[in-house]
């Protein structure tokens, strides 16, 4: 039987969190009686390795763990992963049934990895190319939500032809692309926001500006799509330090266990009306954003009303901690992800219509250019 591979790491600021998610998933899969689990580690510099799935996080502290075997990845039919430089120069393919994608941020969550896996015909869990790309682009995601009539805060591209937003400060300044709260900043006025644009390396690829609403707190829900669309309990993440303006990267991940170890109120103590509204909105978002696998939706709420904030298409710890009412074991969540990967293809390329008629009637290329 071909194996299941957990893919984690990657050239992303969230590389380390992804290692935690990946090792947790590998451990979760190893418990069952299913196929063998292989751990594929994507290094910070973009190289592929197979590592022991039973490794602990500290093995990755200094870089590629000891004993890692280099792999090559070929994005072509019959490609995929194979062992680099096997004996006598022959490479041995890593026979995979499904790849469980555990990469956060960067090319592992923005569609790049997904596109490569599609081209290699490797089946994988989580978002498709389009879903991943939309989820990573805060400007586009916000626009799709607003366009569909869901409540959102105004969000504008900083420096993208906008002289001045038509809402007042203070503002929250975010990288346009990026999967976590890294690089997020609260600024008092527009001039400061513009100054930050040059100084903050995380904003180089573009930044969005929205009103800062200290009266609103984060509320998060999990969405999973197999076997049917399901919405988790609502969670209120809790800041470790009351002095910070926004839920920062440290609050989310540095607690030790990754996302699964952070402080939270779960289920969040909110009114039944708000909860119902959030669940309905979550179902709409799932459709609009093309959620596949397991996503985490972030809302902001003042207790009565809410807005859709962001989506995480490969959430930390695969958002396993959100499934408390009713409880769903991690093994079940993982099994469903794998089943969906096998049964719901991410793409269907077609060459229908390219029947040669255009070629036949084309004549000579030189004549066309003349």
């Amino acid at each position, binding site marked *: 039987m071909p194996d299941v591979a957990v893919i984690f790491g990657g050239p992303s600021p969230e590389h380390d969190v992804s290692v935690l998610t990946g090792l947790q998933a590998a451990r979760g899969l190893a418990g069952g009686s299913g196929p063998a689990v292989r751990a594929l580690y994507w290094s*910070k*510099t973009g190289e592929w390795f197979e590592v022991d799935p039973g490794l602990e996080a500290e093995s990755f502290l200094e*870089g590629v763990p*000891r004993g890692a075997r280099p792999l090559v990845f070929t994005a072509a039919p019959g490609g995929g992963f194979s062992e680099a430089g096997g004996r006598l120069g022959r490479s041995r393919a890593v026979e995979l049934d499904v790849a469980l994608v555990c990469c956060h941020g960067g090319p592992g969550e923005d569609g790049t990895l997904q596109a490569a896996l599609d081209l290699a015909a490797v089946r994988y869990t989580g978002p498709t190319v389009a879903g991943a790309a939309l989820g990573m682009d805060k400007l586009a995601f916000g626009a799709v939500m607003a366009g569909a009539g869901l409540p959102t805060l105004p969000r504008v591209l900083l420096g993208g032809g906008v002289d001045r937003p038509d809402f007042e400060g203070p503002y929250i300044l975010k990288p346009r692309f990026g999967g976590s709260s890294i690089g997020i900043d609260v600024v008092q006025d527009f001039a400061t926001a513009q100054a930050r644009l040059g*100084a903050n*390396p995380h904003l180089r690829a573009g930044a969005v500006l929205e009103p800062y609403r200290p009266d609103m707190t984060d509320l998060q829900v999990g969405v999973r799509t197999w076997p049917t669309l399901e919405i988790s309990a609502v969670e209120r993440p809790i800041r470790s330090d009351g002095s910070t303006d926004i839920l920062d990267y440290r609050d989310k991940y540095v607690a030790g266990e990754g996302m699964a170890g952070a402080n939270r109120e779960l289920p969040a103590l909110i009114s039944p009306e708000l909860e119902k509204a959030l669940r309905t909105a979550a179902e709409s978002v799932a459709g609009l954003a093309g959620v596949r696998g397991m996503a985490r939706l972030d809302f902001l709420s003042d207790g009565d009303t809410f807005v859709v904030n962001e989506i995480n298409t490969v959430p930390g710890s695969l958002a396993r901690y959100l499934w408390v009412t009713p409880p769903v074991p991690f093994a079940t969540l993982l099994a469903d992800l794998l089943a969906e990967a096998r049964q719901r293809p991410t793409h269907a390329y077609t060459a229908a219509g390219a029947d040669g008629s255009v070629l036949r009637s084309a004549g000579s290329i030189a004549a066309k250019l003349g």
Partner: protein
Amino acid sequence: MAVVGTAPVPSTVALEFARDHHGVAWITVACAVAACAPAGLRWLRVAQREHYLAGSVLRFAGRWWRSTPTNAALATGAVAAAVASLWWPPAGVATAAVVAAGPIGLGVRGRTSPLAWTRRLRTLAAVWAGLVVVLVVVGVVTGAASPLAVVAALAVPVLVDLACWATTPLERRLSGRFVDRAAARLVRVAPTVVAITGSFGKTSTKGHVAFLVTGTRSVVATPASFNNRAGLARAVNEHLADGTEVFVAEMGTYGPGEIADLVGWCPPDIAVITAIGPVHLERFGSEDRIVEAKSEILGPAPDVVLAVDDPRLAAVADRAAAAGKRVHRCSARDPAADVAVVRGSGGALSVYRRGSVLAEGIEVPVGVQPSNLACAIAVALVVGVDPEAVGSRLSGLPSTDHRLQAVRSGTGATILDDTYNSNPAGASAALAALASAAGDGPADGGGSRRAVVVTPGMVELGARQFEENRRFGAAVAGVATDLVIVGRTNRRALQVGSASVPGAGVRTVLVGDRPEAVTWVREHLGPGDAVLYENDLPDHYP
């Protein structure tokens, strides 16, 4: 003494075999070869801990066999028995027994730093085993099997050193592949390279630079111990992600020419020397040669950052300026320097840039050394961090792990962790911190607060090792109530030093290893007390 009762005593074994002289010679050969196995593991581990530098194993063997009267007696006995075995082969069995079991205290596996079977170690082990086999085969062919096998057992440290020496060219060739890849990667990613060296303060300065630059540029710093050729290449190959704008590399040196090699393929845009001190003195010979070796880092760098409170580095700065480099002079006392970080009477720091104030009243963790911080600020300014941003980030400066880090223990005592420090200047800074920590603690009414120093002393100080540790012992006596001396490496120097201060009344406690010291501290310290853990030696030191 149960051991004597159950195991055959060498001499009785020998007597038994003496009846058949020929057979006994072969038994001796077998015992000697068997003894090579545990001894080999022991000394291979030392070679690994000492970066495979040829000669280091023999040096450590000397240290260990002299470390206690028992070890010295065993060593003398083993050599005597080896000589005796020339006439009476069974004596060689005694040599083999000592080689297999000793020196007492140096474990085969290792507690703090176990043997790691890396590719390099496997190669080394194979070459060493080959040398043993060659000796024995030569012995068999020439009819001197027993003496040569005994020599192979007795000379395990020498043979391991020889194997280190023999494999060095091969290892350079192999690591060359990784270095070439790293060099190509550096060219492709093209970050601004900041190279930092110094006898001490490298790692702290590197951490400060990374912290100050983070908000403005995407920065990658080499992991803690990756500061030699192989480590730096690995850091580049595995950590230098595309899109990195600033790469902060720590460059260490064990001898002349090493840093020149590093900057050859990892050329710095900004070169930093943090300090000169008697670290690794036994490998360099003199501090002037250390200055020379560290100065190799300046190489082609257009910008140079130097801690000029040390007159030797001030001289380096003048030479660099004369050579047309942009020199940034950093100081911990002269506000007129290019960057100065000066500690005020209350402990808060003031930052000056050529005489004008850049930031004031900065509170930083106790272990932050102003001179290192000044160098880091100079680097941040060169890579284009806004001076205001530097000022505002400084107050969030984190402490560096194990570098004078202060924590409160479960029993309420203050623990100062300075276990990564191993130089005299850092040690006196740590003592000052201990004095103030002990003064800060809540009074317990009795006024009997304890200030304890736990230390194995400092090593690799060459001819000055005894003197520096004696001085440190004396300085401890002026501050602490108790001195817990770990291990035997510097025991006598520290004892002589602490006893040399009349009327200090410092109590000296001798323990074998770090865990024993921690147990002692747990039993004796309570709220308001303070303990300084100064330096830690891996267990391949006696």
